[in-house]
C-alpha cells in the first residue's frame, strides 16, 4: 500500500488547456492511493519561493501510475510549473486531504458543481461516482476546459460569466435556468459560489459537500495555517476551527460557519 510521502516525480506531459490553465500528467506511485477531491502539494525549484502549492487532483490513472493536475497560473510558483515539460522532475507531497465521500452520493441524483479552477477535481469524481450525475460548471468565457471530458460521465450544464456559452452568470443561475434538482451536491470553486451553494442546499434540505482552498504551509495538519470556521467545536482542535489540509478540503457545508 502506498503511503503519504514527499517524492521527486516525473512530468509525463503538459499542455495549455485554456488561457493560463495548464494540464499536467505526473508519473508517480502516489496515483495508487489518490482519491477524488484529494490534492498534492507541489514544490517550486525557485529557492526564493519555499512553500509548496496545493493543487487538486483532476484525474487518476492507477494502471500507469499517473496523476493529472489542471491548474491556473496565479503566481510565480504556478508560472514555474507551467514551464515544465515531459521528463522534467517535479517535487510533490501527497496525497493529501480527505476527498469526496463517494458513499454519500452513491445511486442518488447528484450535482457535481465546479467553478473556474474548481472544475478539475470534478473530473475524477465524475468518473468514480456511481450516481445520476448533473454536472454544472461555470467559466469566465467560452474557454470551456474539461467540459468535453466531463460530458463522458454525465450531462453537463454550462454557465459563463460573459454569457458566451450556456447560462449567462454562475452555476446557481444555470441550476435555476435549467430547473435542475438533486439529492446531494458535491462542489469545488470560489468561496462566493460555495456560500451560495451552502444556502441553496439548506433551502432545498439536501447535503452539500464542498471543497475549500486556503493559504497553506505544511499540508499535513501541523501548522494550523489553513483553517475554516466550523459550527461546532472541531474534534481535533477543540475550538471552532478545522484544518482544511487534513480534516478537509471537503466538508459538509452545514458543518461550516462560512
Amino acid at each position, binding site marked *: 500500500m502506498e*503511503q*503519504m*510521502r*514527499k517524492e521527486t516525480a516525473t512530468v509525463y506531459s503538459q499542455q495549455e488547456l485554456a488561457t493560463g490553465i495548464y494540464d499536467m500528467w505526473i508519473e508517480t506511485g502516489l496515483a495508487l492511493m489518490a482519491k477524488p477531491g484529494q490534492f498534492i502539494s507541489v*514544490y517550486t525549484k525557485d*529557492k*526564493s*519561493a*519555499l*512553500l*509548496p502549492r496545493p493543487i487538486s487532483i483532476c484525474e487518476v490513472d492507477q494502471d500507469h501510475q499517473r496523476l493529472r493536475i489542471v491548474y491556473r497560473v496565479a503566481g510565480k510558483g504556478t508560472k514555474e510549473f507551467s514551464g515544465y515539460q515531459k521528463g522534467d522532475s517535479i517535487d510533490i*507531497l501527497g496525497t493529501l486531504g480527505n476527498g469526496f465521500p463517494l458513499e454519500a452520493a452513491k445511486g442518488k441524483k447528484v450535482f457535481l458543481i465546479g467553478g473556474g479552477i474548481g472544475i478539475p477535481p470534478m473530473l475524477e469524481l465524475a468518473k468514480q461516482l456511481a450516481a445520476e450525475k448533473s454536472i454544472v460548471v461555470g467559466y469566465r468565457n467560452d474557454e470551456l476546459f474539461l467540459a468535453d471530458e466531463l460530458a463522458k460521465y454525465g450531462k453537463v450544464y454550462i454557465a459563463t460569466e460573459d454569457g458566451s456559452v450556456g447560462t449567462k452568470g454562475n452555476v446557481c443561475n444555470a441550476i435555476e435556468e435549467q430547473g435542475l434538482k438533486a439529492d446531494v451536491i458535491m462542489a469545488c470553486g470560489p468561496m462566493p459560489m460555495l456560500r451560495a451553494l451552502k444556502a441553496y442546499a439548506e433551502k432545498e434540505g439536501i447535503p452539500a459537500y464542498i471543497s475549500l482552498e*486556503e*493559504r*497553506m*504551509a*505544511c*499540508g*499535513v*495538519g*501541523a*501548522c*494550523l*495555517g*489553513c*483553517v*475554516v470556521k466550523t459550527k461546532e467545536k472541531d474534534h*481535533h*482542535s*477543540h*475550538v*471552532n*476551527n478545522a484544518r482544511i489540509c*487534513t480534516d478537509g478540503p471537503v466538508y459538509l457545508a452545514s458543518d461550516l460557519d462560512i
Partner: protein
Amino acid sequence: MNTKVTIAGVEFKNPVMTASGTFGSGMEYSNLVDLNGLGAVVTKGVANVPWEGNPTPRVQETYGGMLNAIGLQNPGIDVFIERDIPFLKQFDTKIIVNVCGRSIADYVEVVEKLGDQPVDMLEINVSCPNVSHGGIAFGQKADCLYEITQEIKKKAKQPIIMKLSPNVTDITEMAKAAEAAGSDAVSLINTITGMKIDIHKRTFALANKTGGMSGPAIKPVAVRMVYQVANAVKIPIIGMGGIANAEDAIEFMLAGATGVAVGAMNFVNPYTTKEVAEGIEQYMKQYNIENIMDIVGTVR
C-alpha cells in the same frame, strides 16, 4: 562518535529538535518522519484553555521565508495531556512542551498541570508576536521577563527554557534576565515581526496584518543573536531560525547553541530534521569530532 547533548541535565540522543509550532504535536508528521530519530519533539504551544487563534489567511510566503499569524490556536492543556503526551511517549525521543498564556497565572496553570506528566522540559513562549495578549511584553522587557521566569520556575517540576524574542534592541539583556531568574536554558530566536501587503487588492496579506517571519531568510539574525547570548550567559542555548540543513545547524552550534531546532523548513522539506541529524554525523566524521558537544560555541 557521540552525538548526544545534555541541556540542563536532560540528555538528548542528538541536538536536533523541532521548533515549536512547526511540527504540531508530532502526530501530524509521524507518517513522514521517524520521531525516534529526533533529539526532541518540541510541541506547538499549549495554553490553560483552548485558543481559537487568528482569522485566515494565517500564512504567507516571503522571499526565502514565510510569515505566520496563527495566533497560538491550541486545544488547551487538558486535551493535550490526554491525547498528545501519550502519543509522544510511544517514541524514543525527548518531549519539550511549549507553554503559552495571556497572564502569569495562565502560564503557571499549564506548568502545574504538566508537573506530574512524563515530559522532559518546558519551553516558555513569552515571545509570540501574533497574539495581542500572547505574552510578547514578557519577551520584550527584561523586568517582565525576569518576573514571569521567576514565577514559573517556582512551580515548574521540569527544567524550563525561556524562548526569546528577536524583536528587541539587546537580546543579551533578555537572556541575562532569564538566567538571573532561574531559567535552565534559553531558546532563540522566535519569529521576527514582519508584514506583507497585497498591492493588487491593496490590503494586508495576513488577516492579522503582521506576522512572525521565519525561514532561511532570517538565519543570519538568529546566528548573530545566538552568538551574542552565548557570550552573555552560562545557561545552554537551543538555537533556531531558518535551519535548512546540517551546515546551518552546525553554524548555530559553533555560534553557541547546544541544541538546534528545525522550524519553517519542515514545511518545505518534511525530511529536514532527519537530513540535519545525518549531516551532523557526516561533519563529525569529516573533521574527526568525537563528541558533538565539543564544537559548541567554539567560534569566538
